[in-house]
Every structure is written in C-alpha cells, then in structure tokens.
C-alpha cells in the first residue's frame, strides 16, 4: 500500500478567460475544481503545467482567491508560449500554492510601500488588492510602479481607479514614453529609484518589492538611504523553480529554499551572500 501520494500530481484547472494586456502579457483567469487554492496569499506562487511542455512558477495575481485564480503571464519561453496558444476552456495543471508570501501580519497597523518593476507588478497587485480590501488594518499606503516603456504598463484601468482613491498614493513612471501616455500622474518619466526618492517613505515603513533581478540592488540602496530597516524590506526573489517543495535545489538562495521559505524574504534574512541579489546577463 502506498503511504503517500506524489506531490507532483497537479490539480485540474480550466482557462476561463484570456485577456491580452500590454505587449506580451496576458491575464488568465483559471477555475479549479476543488477549493484547494482558496487559501492563496499575496506573494505565494503556483506551478502552472502545460502537459507535454512543462511547468513554470507563476505568482498569484489576485488578492482574493476563491474558485478562480488570476495569473498575469509574460511570454518569455517554452511554457509561457504554449500557454499563450491555448484557448478558453483548455485544461491546465496547477500545483501549490507554494512558499511564504508577503508578511501580512507583520504589516498590520503599519505604513506600507509597495514597489513593482515591470512584471513584478503581478504579485504586487495581489498585495494591493488584499490590503485595500482590508484597508482599516494599515496606515499610509504608497504604490510605486516603474517600467521600461510606457507601453508595458499593466492593469491600466485598475490603476486609474487607484489614482482616484485618496487612501493610496500612487507613483507610476516609465524610463521612456513609447505608445500611449501613462495615466495622469505627476512624474511620468523616471526609474523606480527616482520615485522612491520622491515618495515620503521613512523608517516607519514596511516595504514590499518585486521586479526584475537587476532592480533589487538599486532599490535596496535607495530604501536604506531613506532609513528603512533591513528587516522591514521584503523582497520577492525569482529563481528557476522546478519542484516548489524544497527538493530540486534550483531555488537555493544563501542556504534557503526560496520555494519553501521564500519567495518573499526580508533583506536581513538573506544575510547578503553575493549571489542572492547580484546577477549577470550570461
């Protein structure tokens, strides 16, 4: 008799809607048969499986997960390209949710700054949806979202709504204006770091960061310059994950399995091994 079932067996998901966003980014709505994903937390991720192609780690993108889950995916390689070929009603496999997301309890009663670079907005969106749904639990909320070209802006409509709210301070900027303008924000041109300089962030803030690997080093420097404590800077790290269960070793960062103990870590926890933050194009 088998004592255990394989952790590699996915649950069945059905693609409910596919919405093209900017450039090579689509928003997928997936429904799952059982309620096993309902406990997903912002910052956690699932392994999305396209049979015959493979799996990719994708962040939970919606703040509330009941029967359906939203995933914002960029077409970059094999699995994501195969996903973009599918049609509504198609079958996909899902495993998870995995890892520890943003520390929602730690954030309670504190001022929050959410920082997204590029596609890093996917998990940050689940976080803003969550904290805005529980608005009374948090102090000031600042959202900073930067991208390379203005044409890459994701969640344009949703951000317009956020810009009209008075209980969240939104900064959006692109390094270059290409295509449509950004929503009406004071500074449209700049980097994430420029917006951090502008925003009224101080040592009382808890900060959540997700973006491309190269962004972290600069964001960290800027935040430390604003006296934010290392233990209050929470980084969501990307690694090429293969299992999600602390076994395959691909997500090892400074001695921790990012898939289990992360992907969100406080800067302090990462004890600054060179390869945790630094990376090279090669």
């Amino acid at each position, binding site marked *: 008799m*088998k004592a255990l079932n394989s*952790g590699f*067996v996915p649950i069945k998901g059905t693609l409910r809607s596919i919405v093209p966003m900017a450039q090579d980014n689509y928003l997928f709505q997936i429904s799952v048969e059982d309620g096993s994903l309902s406990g997903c937390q912002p910052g956690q991720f699932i392994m999305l499986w396209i*049979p015959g192609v493979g799996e990719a780690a994708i962040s939970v993108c919606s703040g509330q997960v009941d029967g359906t889950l939203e995933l914002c995916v960029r077409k970059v390689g094999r699995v994501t390209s195969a996903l973009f070929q599918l049609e509504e009603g198609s079958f996909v496999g899902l495993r998870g949710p995995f890892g520890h997301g943003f520390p929602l309890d730690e954030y309670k009663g504190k001022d929050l700054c959410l920082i997204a670079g590029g596609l890093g907005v996917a998990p940050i969106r689940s976080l803003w949806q969550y904290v805005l749904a529980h608005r009374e639990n948090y102090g000031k909320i600042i959202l900073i979202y930067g991208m390379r070209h203005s044409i890459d802006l994701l969640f344009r409509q949703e951000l317009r709504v956020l810009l009209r709210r008075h209980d969240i301070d939104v900064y959006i900027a692109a390094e270059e204006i290409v295509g449509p303008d950004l929503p009406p924000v004071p500074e449209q041109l700049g980097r994430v770091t420029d917006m951090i300089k502008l925003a009224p962030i101080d040592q009382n803030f808890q900060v959540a960061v997700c973006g491309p690997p190269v962004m972290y080093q600069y964001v960290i420097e800027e935040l430390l310059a604003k006296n934010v404590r290392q233990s209050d800077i929470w980084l969501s790290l990307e690694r090429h994950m293969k299992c999600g269960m602390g076994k*395959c070793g691909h997500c090892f960062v400074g001695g921790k399995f990012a898939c289990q103990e992360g992907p969100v870590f406080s800067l302090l926890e990462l004890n600054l091994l060179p390869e945790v933050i630094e990376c090279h194009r*090669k």
Partner: protein
Amino acid sequence: MDICYKFSKESFLDFFKLMQSFGQVHAPVRVSEQSFSFRPVEKPEQIAFEALRTILPPKKMFFPQRETLISYSGKEVKDHTPEPLAQVLFGVHPCDLAGLGIMDNIFSAGPPDSHYLARRQATLVVGLSCMPDKHCFCNSMGTDFPHSAYDIFLTDIGEDYYLQIATTLGEKLFDPKPDFIKTIDDQDNQSYKDFWTNRDKAFTSNFKSDNLKQIFDLEKDNPVWEELGKRCLSCGNCTPVCPTCYCFDVIDVASLDGNSGSREREWDSCQFTGFAKVSGDFNFRPGPVDRLKFWYRHKLHGFDDSYGLKTCVGCGRCTVSCPADIDDIVGVVLRLQASQNESKKDESA
C-alpha cells in the same frame, strides 16, 4: 542501544539467505579493475567485500538517475509513486550511511517525496565496516562511525562479524533467532572496540572541521577559488557521484499523439551553466568560480540552511572523479585554513 550478536564469517551464506528472505539483495560488485557498483546479487561470491567507494553512491536505489513522476493521457493524470518493493541494500559504509541520513532528511522534510520514501521505507539497509584509503576523510567530517540510517551493521572482527541491530525491521529479521547467530561476550566487545580504534589510526587525510563555517566565510575571496574555477570544466562529474547531491530537473516527455506523455525527473548539477538562470537570461551563478564556491559551501559550510547540515560525508568520490583534480576537498580546506593562520600571524606581528 543496538541489539548485538555475532556470527562466523563461515556462516555468511546463512546470513545472505536471511537477507534474501526479506527481498532482492543489492551489494557492491566489481565492475572493472578499479570500480565497484551496487548491483542485484544472487550469491555471496558476487559481492566485492573489499569495495570502498562504489562509482555511484547508494542514493541511486531510492532516487534513480531518471524516473517517471506522473503520466497523463488527455486530462487523466496518473501518479507513478512506486509500489513499495522489499529489498536489501548490503555493504553500506559509515560515510554512505551518513549520506543516506542526509538524503532521508531532505526527502522527508516539507512536503515529503513519495517516490523516494516508497523505495526507502521498503529497504533493509545493512551496513559494513571498512578500512580507509588515502582519499577517505570521513573522520574529519564526523561521519566515520555508524550513527543512523542502518537497520543492521556488521563489523569485521576477524573470524566473526559483530552484528548490530538498530531497528524493528532489523529485529524482525532475526525473530525467531536463527542457529548461526551467537551471543557476544566481553572478548567480542573488546575486539569490536579494537577494530574501530585501529581503524581510526588508519586515516591519512584529516583536517579540523569544527571551524569550517568560519573558514568559508572569512576566506570567501581567497585566490584559491579563482585558481580552481579557471580549471573547472563545468562537466558536473562531481555531483552525481556525491552521496548527498540531490538536485534534479523535471522534464515533460510528450508522446507522438500529442495527447499523452509523462513528467520525468533527472539528476541535475549545480555545476552546469544554466542551473541558476532565470528569465531575461539573468544568471545568479554565471561563472565556474561562482558555481564551484557554491558547491563547496553547500558541502562544507552547511550554509546555516534549514537543515543546518554540512553535506559532505568525506567519501572521497568527487576527489577521484574530477578530471581537473579540483575536488581535492582535503587539499582545499587545508589551504584555506593555512591562509587563515597566516592572517592571524600577520595581525599579531
């Protein structure tokens, strides 16, 4: 405390038959002039009792080089967790037992790995004492004595094997007690002690391991890393042979009809260029120096990781299988320690 008996080497056949009554016996077999491999055996004459390190460590019994995890046909997914099949793994030396202990830890922690555990839990592990050669340094790593991961352990005490039984699985095998099993007396206990004391003296390579964490942290920029990195071929030979390297890749294999296929896992190596690559072609360990340092750190520093383990058990396999003579762990540690001593001298001067 283990239950202890002895049996005469002349009655090894009886012991072998007893193992066979449990399941298929796997033991080290000579496969070339210099090399040994764990293989299924049908009679004691096939066993290479003299084998020190097999080419691949015993992990392959529970975590094969390639295996099917799941298969699918349309939307139907089938779990390929193996049916537990009783088997015996004979002739595992103390370093490899320590290695198995580490693998057991990894594969049972977090969400447990059903594929590994199904095989592991159905296996009776019989350890065997050994005498070190010049590449063994388990004494430095504290893995030179059987502590765990065995059901039965045999120590060669001359005419007899001193038999230790550590688990219920092992105890059941000797119930009812077969005739060839004898009780031990003070003389046997003395012979047992003498064996391990003499063995301890037989090690040629050894270093102090209580300061490894410190050494690896302080000497992270030591020139030795550049020097070794320049020579490393990134061939990844060092990882499959290591009893505690567990990293793997998972790949989809689709059949021609496009509607069915399987997901397979395969041993992977942190020494391969793409191991730590993410989208956008960013690489967290782009060069051989980064990868080599990472590997050494995992093996000897222990990373302060979730398991807090130094994952080198001193078997010497990487040392003998590296084509570039880089994985001379003892040599590297001695050099790093020497650099530390030099720095200390400089400071006091």
